[in-house]
């Protein structure tokens, strides 16, 4: 049991960390702690959580290529699915709690509010990705699967634009998310990716050389 826990701590942390915001949201809802504008607060929180999880998901591959920390790779799927879960709750709050499923109002809101349009676009992109996240679909789609799931880059960009467009004027916070997403996409560009891995192998070599040089010193020091 303990060994299992130790082996899976990353996965456990991912599940607990991803579900915690939902638990807090439900708790706050039942204790009237969702501010005086609860629908807006719930919308903001679920949207922000979806974005953070999306960013973490995009960080998985770079973390693996830069630090060769292979254990994080299986987390990508879960982070993506949780991001989709929060996006779904976010979307349902908007159309259901906020607009009461009033189609006329919703149509107007989505076409007049370009931020809602890009947010909806991102959600529509995430939907097939979530549905095809299983091993079965991976096998069935073969090479197409990878191409299809690259759409998540577009979804992340749309989500950042969605955030930039909804703030009143001060776009510093959404721009920070934009910069992080941009950076995470940049390190995926083949040229940059190759440079990083070259740099990494050079550093590895240097480190091993140094440790080889240092060892005799240590032996000598011990002899003294």
């Amino acid at each position, binding site marked *: 049991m303990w060994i299992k826990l130790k082996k899976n701590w990353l996965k456990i942390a991912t599940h607990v960390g991803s579900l915690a915001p939902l638990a807090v949201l439900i708790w706050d809802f039942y*204790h*009237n*702690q969702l*501010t*005086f*504008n609860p*629908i*807006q607060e719930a919308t903001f929180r679920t949207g922000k959580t979806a974005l953070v999880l999306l960013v973490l998901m995009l960080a998985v591959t770079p973390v693996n290529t830069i630090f060769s920390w292979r254990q994080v790779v299986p987390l990508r799927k879960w982070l993506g699915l949780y991001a989709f879960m929060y996006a779904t709750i976010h979307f349902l709050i908007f159309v259901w*709690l*906020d*607009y*009461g499923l009033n189609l006329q*109002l919703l149509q*107007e*809101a989505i076409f*007049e*509010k*370009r*931020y*809602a349009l890009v947010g909806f676009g991102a959600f529509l992109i995430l939907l097939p990705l979530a549905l095809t996240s299983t091993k079965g679909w991976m096998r069935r789609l073969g090479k197409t699967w990878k191409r299809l799931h690259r759409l998540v880059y577009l979804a992340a960009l749309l989500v950042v634009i969605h955030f930039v*467009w*909804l703030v*009143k*004027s*001060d776009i*510093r916070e959404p721009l920070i998310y934009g910069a992080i997403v941009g950076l995470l996409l940049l390190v995926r560009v083949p040229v940059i990716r190759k440079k990083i891995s070259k740099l990494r192998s050079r550093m590895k070599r240097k480190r091993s050389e140094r440790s080889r040089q240092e060892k005799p010193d240590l032996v000598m020091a011990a002899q003294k």
Partner: protein
Amino acid sequence: MTEIKSSEITPEHIYFSRRRFMKGIGTLAAGSLVLSGCGLGGSSSGGIEIDESELKVSVTADERGAALNSFESITNFNNFYEFTADKERVAKMAKDFVTSPWTVQVGGLVNNPKTYDLDDLARFSQQERVYRLRCVEGWSMVIPWLGFPLHELLKEVEPTSKAKYVRFETVYDPEQLPGQRSDWYTWPYVEGLRMDEAMNDLAILATGLYGTGLLPQNGAPVRLVVPWKYGFKSIKSIVKIDLVEEMPISLWMAAAPYEYGFYANVNPEVPHPRWSQATERRIGDPGRRATLPFNGYAEQVAYLYEDMDLRVYY
């Protein structure tokens, strides 16, 4: 200068006997309604403590029958960027804001420039005005203000014939107002009204709400309230009022000229460039309600804009 407590500016017994101006509300209730324990189901965010038995209003709804928002929600959900952009944290951060002594310098194109202290402001007839407040962000409240018509003050200083606009300025004090240390906006907060708008009886300078003096988060000690315009026009904690010839550039106009205009009249037909203004969320209510032209005050103010294209002059 003697120190004046904010509670002394607006003696609660005064407003009660004053005339009411708003149509449709009907005669004043015979007794004031004392609110007790009316808060929104124990929100934990409440940073302020006030004896709720001091709160007094003569009505429980606006002239359209919409219930007043609770004192708790009005004083704990505030847009006041001089403190923070987080509406729920304003009350806490504004707790120790010093609003007395205070002066409002009224000058510019006037015959009788005058500096008003809190005593001077308290001498104007204090009236209860139940107004809807519609934020440009899409939420709204119903607030029982206490204040006096702006035109009463303007008449005292006698604007000259050259005066075309009124320019208002919020206190600039980065020591007390941490938000003003950020360069994102051009501080201090500035707002303006056209002369005829300023003379309209709906425009008031508020010094209180719910029968008690204003709290800092609501713009103490004195603020503008122009209910037919988006909330950001109702500038808070005013220290300067100038009569001017040129249209003032407000803080929001300077920040995003294509999104926030000088007029900023509530208008469901003219969407914000990035979002619709057709509906609003009334704080305390579930769901949404339709936004009304001029926030439901068309009868009193629509004449001011008769020949104007409100899509151009947003």
